[in-house]
C-alpha cells in the first residue's frame, strides 16, 4: 500500500494503482479521453498529464504511471494547467467545430473538458483534416472527422466483446478508425462503443438527430430483452421513449448493454394495442372496455380459468392475475410458454447460483444447451473474462461461435452420463467448477442429470455454488417465485381445458391447444398472442408501468414508469382489478401500493432489492440420465426474440442485415 501525496494531501493507495487512480482517490478530477476503467491502458490522448516528483521535470501521463511510495503528485500547478491546455489545443486542431449539428452535443467529453480545461479561443488557422465516413452497421453512425483516436472502440471490441473487427488504419494524422472493408460491426454488444466514444465520432444511428440530452426525462428501468436484467436508463420526451442507455451496476451488466436491450425501444411505438378488441364471427372488432368485460363474464369461467404469463411481464402483473385466479378458485398458472416442464420444486435448482460476478472467477465451465452469446450476451462477456483468467469452457450443444476458446462436446446429451476424460480431469482439478444449463438443455430434460453432475463434481462447496440455470425470459424467475409453474408445464393447462385463458403478454404459446377456451390477451403489442386472442385488452409495456423483475440469478430489481401507455391502454394490474369486478370477485387490492404490499406479504423476497435466497440445491437423483440430441437452440434470431423487438424497425433491419446477411444499400446522407 504505497503512500503518495496528491496536492499536499497524503493518501494510501492500493498496490498496483496508477497515479490517475491515486488522484481520483484523493478526490481530484483528472480529465481523460483514452483511459477507461474497464479497458486496457492506452495512454495515447495525453489529457491526464500531471506533475509527479520524483521523476523527469515534465508532465507525465497519469493513467499509465504506477503510483509508488513517496510520490508527490500535483494536479493544480501552472505546468499542469498549461499542459492540459496544450493537449486540448492539439486535440481540437483536427476536430470540427460542428457541435451544433453533433448528436454528442451536451453529453460530450471533449466539449465538457474543453470548457473546463481548454484555452478560451483557437489560434489555429491552417486547414483541418477531413475523414470519409465509415459504415459500421445499422446501429452505429460514424462521423470520423470528429475522431480523436482514443482507440476505446478498438479496445472494447478486442477485449470485452472478443470480436476483433474495429481497427486503426494508417498512421499519424492519417490515422482512421474503421472496420475491415467497412463491414457492419456484427456482434451483440456493438453499440456499446457509442457510449465509450468520448466525442461524436460514433453516435447512435437510430437516434440520430432525435433529441438533445437536456430535454429528456431520465427514468431508471430494467432491460427485459433477456433474463440478465441489465440496469438501464430510459430517456423519454413527452410520451415517447427516445433511447435506452445502460446504467452502471457491477453485479449485473457492469456498464454494457446488449444491442437488443438498447435498440428495441423504438418498437414501443409501433404495432401497439391501443384499443379494446373483441373477436366477432372470426374477425377482431374494436369495442369498449365494458363490452369486453361483459364478454368475459358471459363465459362464466368460475374456477375454470387459467393465466399464462409472457416473457416481459413484471411480478406485480403476475401477482394480480394470481390473486384474481385465486379468488375464482383456480391455480392454473404457467409462465413457460414454449412448453418447458422442468421440476420447480426447488428454485435453487433453476437459478444462476454463481451470480454473474461470480462466474467470472470460475475455472472450469460446462455449458449444457445454451447459446450464451445470443441468450445472454452480457453473461458471455463474463465467461470471456473467466477464460482470460484461465478457465476452460466445454459446451454441449450444436456449435456456435463463442468469443473465447471453448471445446464443443457435440449435441448429444448422453455425453453428460459419461464425460470425456479431459472434461472430468479439468473439473476434478478445478477449484471453482461451474455448470450452466440453458433453455435447450432444460427442454430436453437435462436438469436431473445436471444436478447429478453437480453432486459428482462438488459444484457446491465452501463459498461457491457452481450450479447455474440460464433463463431467457425477464419474467421467468419472478414467475417461478409466484408459482407460475405446473408440474407438466403448459400441457397441464391445455389438458384442464379452461373456459377462459388470460394471456399476460404471452406471445410464444402454441394456441392451437386452446381452441375451446376464450383467449383474453392482456398485452401491449399486436403480435402472435393478439392474433390468436378472442378478446384483446390493451396493456402497458415495461416502460409504461412500475414493476419488479427478478433476473436469472434471482436478483430482485425494480423498474420505474417512464411514459404513459398509448391510447386506451392501461397498466396491467388495473385491467385485472377491473376484471375482478366484472367477474364478481374481490382480489384484495385497490391501488398499486396495496397490490405490491400483498405480493410482498406472500413472497417476502420480492420486497427486497438484491439476491433472493432459494436455499440449498435439492438432493440429486444419482441415477438421473440425460438423453436426446439438442437439435437447435430456442433463439433462432437474436434480434427478434420478443414482441417489442419484433415491432422495432431497427431490430428488423439488424436481423435482415446481420443475421440473414441481406445487403442493405446505404442511403446517401
Amino acid at each position, binding site marked *: 500500500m504505497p503512500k503518495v501525496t496528491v496536492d499536499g494531501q497524503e493518501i494510501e493507495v492500493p498496490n498496483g494503482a496508477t497515479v490517475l487512480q491515486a488522484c481520483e482517490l484523493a478526490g481530484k478530477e483528472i480529465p481523460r479521453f483514452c483511459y477507461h476503467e474497464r479497458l486496457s491502458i492506452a495512454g495515447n490522448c495525453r489529457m491526464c498529464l500531471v506533475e509527479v516528483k520524483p521523476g523527469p521535470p515534465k508532465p507525465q501521463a497519469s493513467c499509465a504511471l504506477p503510483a509508488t511510495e513517496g510520490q508527490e503528485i500535483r494536479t493544480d500547478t501552472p505546468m499542469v494547467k498549461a499542459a492540459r491546455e496544450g493537449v486540448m489545443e492539439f486535440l481540437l486542431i483536427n476536430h470540427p467545430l460542428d457541435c451544433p449539428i453533433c448528436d454528442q452535443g451536451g453529453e460530450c467529453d471533449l466539449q465538457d473538458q474543453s470548457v473546463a480545461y481548454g484555452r478560451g479561443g483557437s489560434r489555429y488557422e491552417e486547414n483541418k483534416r477531413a475523414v470519409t465516413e465509415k459504415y459500421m452497421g445499422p446501429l452505429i453512425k460514424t462521423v470520423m472527422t470528429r475522431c480523436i483516436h482514443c482507440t476505446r472502440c478498438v479496445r472494447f471490441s478486442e477485449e470485452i466483446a472478443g470480436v*476483433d*473487427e*474495429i*481497427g*486503426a*488504419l*494508417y*498512421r499519424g494524422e*492519417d490515422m482512421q478508425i474503421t*472496420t*475491415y*472493408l467497412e463491414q457492419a460491426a456484427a456482434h451483440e454488444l456493438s453499440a456499446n462503443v457509442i457510449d465509450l466514444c468520448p466525442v461524436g465520432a460514433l453516435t447512435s444511428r437510430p437516434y440520430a438527430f432525435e433529441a438533445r440530452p437536456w430535454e429528456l426525462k431520465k427514468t431508471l428501468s430494467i432491460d427485459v430483452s433477456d433474463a440478465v436484467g441489465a440496469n438501464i436508463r430510459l430517456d423519454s420526451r413527452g410520451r415517447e421513449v427516445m433511447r435506452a442507455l445502460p446504467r452502471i451496476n457491477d453485479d449485473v451488466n457492469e456498464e454494457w448493454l446488449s444491442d437488443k436491450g438498447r435498440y428495441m425501444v423504438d418498437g414501443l411505438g409501433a404495432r401497439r394495442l391501443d384499443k379494446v378488441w373483441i373477436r366477432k364471427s372470426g374477425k377482431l372488432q374494436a369495442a369498449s372496455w365494458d363490452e369486453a368485460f361483459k364478454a368475459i363474464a358471459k363465459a362464466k369461467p368460475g374456477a375454470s380459468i387459467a393465466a399464462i404469463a409472457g416473457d416481459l411481464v413484471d411480478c406485480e402483473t403476475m401477482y394480480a392475475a394470481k390473486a384474481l385466479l385465486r379468488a375464482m378458485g383456480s391455480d392454473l398458472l404457467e409462465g413457460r410458454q414454449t412448453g418447458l416442464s422442468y421440476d420447480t420444486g426447488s428454485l435453487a435448482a433453476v437459478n444462476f447460483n454463481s451470480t454473474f460476478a461470480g462466474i467470472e472467477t470460475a475455472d472450469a465451465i460446462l455449458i449444457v444447451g445454451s447459446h450464451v452469446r445470443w441468450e445472454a450476451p452480457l453473461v458471455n462477456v463474463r465467461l470471456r473474462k473467466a477464460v482470460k483468467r484461465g478457465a476452460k469452457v466445454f459446451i454441449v450443444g450444436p456449435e456456435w461461435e463463442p468469443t473465447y476458446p471453448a471445446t464443443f462436446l457435440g449435441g448429444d446429451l448422453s455425453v453428460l452420463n459419461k464425460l470425456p476424460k479431459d472434461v472430468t480431469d479439468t473439473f476434478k482439478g478445478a477449484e471453482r467448477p461451474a455448470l450452466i444449463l440453458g433453455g435447450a438443455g432444460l427442454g430436453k430434460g437435462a436438469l436431473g442429470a445436471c444436478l447429478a453432475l453437480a453432486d459428482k463434481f462438488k459444484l457446491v462447496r465452501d463459498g461457491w455454488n457452481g450450479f447455474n440455470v440460464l433463463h431467457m425470459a425477464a419474467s421467468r424467475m419472478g414467475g417461478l417465485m409466484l408459482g407460475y409453474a405446473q408440474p407438466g408445464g403448459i400441457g397441464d393447462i391445455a389438458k384442464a381445458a379452461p373456459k377462459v385463458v388470460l394471456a399476460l403478454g404471452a406471445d410464444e404459446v402454441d394456441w392451437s391447444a386452446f381452441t375451446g377456451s376464450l383467449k383474453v390477451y392482456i398485452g401491449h403489442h399486436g403480435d402472435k398472442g393478439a392474433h390468436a386472442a378472442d378478446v384483446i385488452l390493451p396493456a402497458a409495456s415495461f416502460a409504461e408501468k412500475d414493476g419488479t423483475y427478478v433476473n436469472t440469478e434471482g436478483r430482485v430489481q425494480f423498474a420505474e414508469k417512464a411514459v404513459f401507455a398509448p391510447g386506451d391502454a392501461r397498466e396491467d394490474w388495473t385491467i385485472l382489478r377491473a376484471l375482478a369486478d366484472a367477474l364478481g370477485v374481490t382480489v384484495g387490492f385497490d391501488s398499486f401500493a396495496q397490490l405490491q404490499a400483498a405480493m410482498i406479504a406472500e413472497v417476502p423476497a420480492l420486497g427486497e432489492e438484491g439476491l433472493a435466497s432459494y436455499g440449498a440445491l435439492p438432493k440429486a437423483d444419482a441415477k438421473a440420465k440425460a438423453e436426446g440430441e439438442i437439435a437447435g437452440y430456442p433463439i433462432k434470431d437474436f434480434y427478434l426474440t420478443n414482441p417489442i423487438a419484433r415491432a422495432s424497425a431497427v431490430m428488423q433491419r439488424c436481423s435482415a442485415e446481420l443475421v440473414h446477411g441481406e445487403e442493405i444499400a446505404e442511403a446517401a446522407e
Partner: protein
Amino acid sequence: MADRTPAPDTPELRARWGSFAWTEENRKKADWHIAKYPAGRQKSAVMPLLDLAQRQVGAETDTQGWLPLPVIEYVAAHLDMPVIRVLEVATFYFMYNLRPVGKFHVQVCGTTPCMLRGSDALFETCKKRGMSKGHVSADGLWTLTEVECMGNCATAPMVQINDDNYEDLTPERLDAVLDALAAGQQPKTGTQEPGRHTSEPAGGPTTLKAMVSANHDYRGEW
C-alpha cells in the same frame, strides 16, 4: 504523403489473388519466421510474413511486389489473426505497398536535409523520365514515391530503389543509376560520390583528426 489506401476490393482483384498461397520455398521461410516466437505467439511474425508475401507477389508480377487484400487475408489466416489487425500493420508501415508498383520502386527522400542538398532536382529527373508520384510508368518499370527521412542524411540526397539505397545523388548520377537499372544491370549501391566509401565525412575529417588512424587521448588538450 503517398496514397496509402488499399487497392479496392473488386471481383477482379479476388479473381487474380484469391488463390494466393505460399510457394514451397516461402512456406519454409514463413515457418522459420514463425518458429522464432514461442508457441501461441505466432502473431509476432506478421511483419516478416507480410514482407514475404509482398516479395512473392513481386516475383509473380515481376515488380517490387505489393499486398492485395486477398493476400493480406491469406497472411491473417496463416497466423490465425483477425484481418483488421494485419491490415493495421500493413497500412502503418511504408515498406508495404498497398497498390501495384513498377519493377523499380523509386522512393525519393524529400525531408529537410535531402531537400537542402537538392532532392527537388531528383524529382525533376524522375519526372523527366516519365515517372509520376504514386503511379506506375507506362513501361511498367517505375513507380515514384516521395518518402520521409530514411536516415541517410550524411549522404543526402538519397533514393531507395527496392532493397538498395543510392546516396550522394545529383540528377546526372541518378540518371546513370536509373539507366543501369533499366538496362538490367546492378549499379553500385550506397554513395555515388567518387572516393567516398560509406558515410564518412566528405573531403576528409574536419574534427578529431588525430584519431583517424590510431587512438589519441585528447583529454590533456581540453
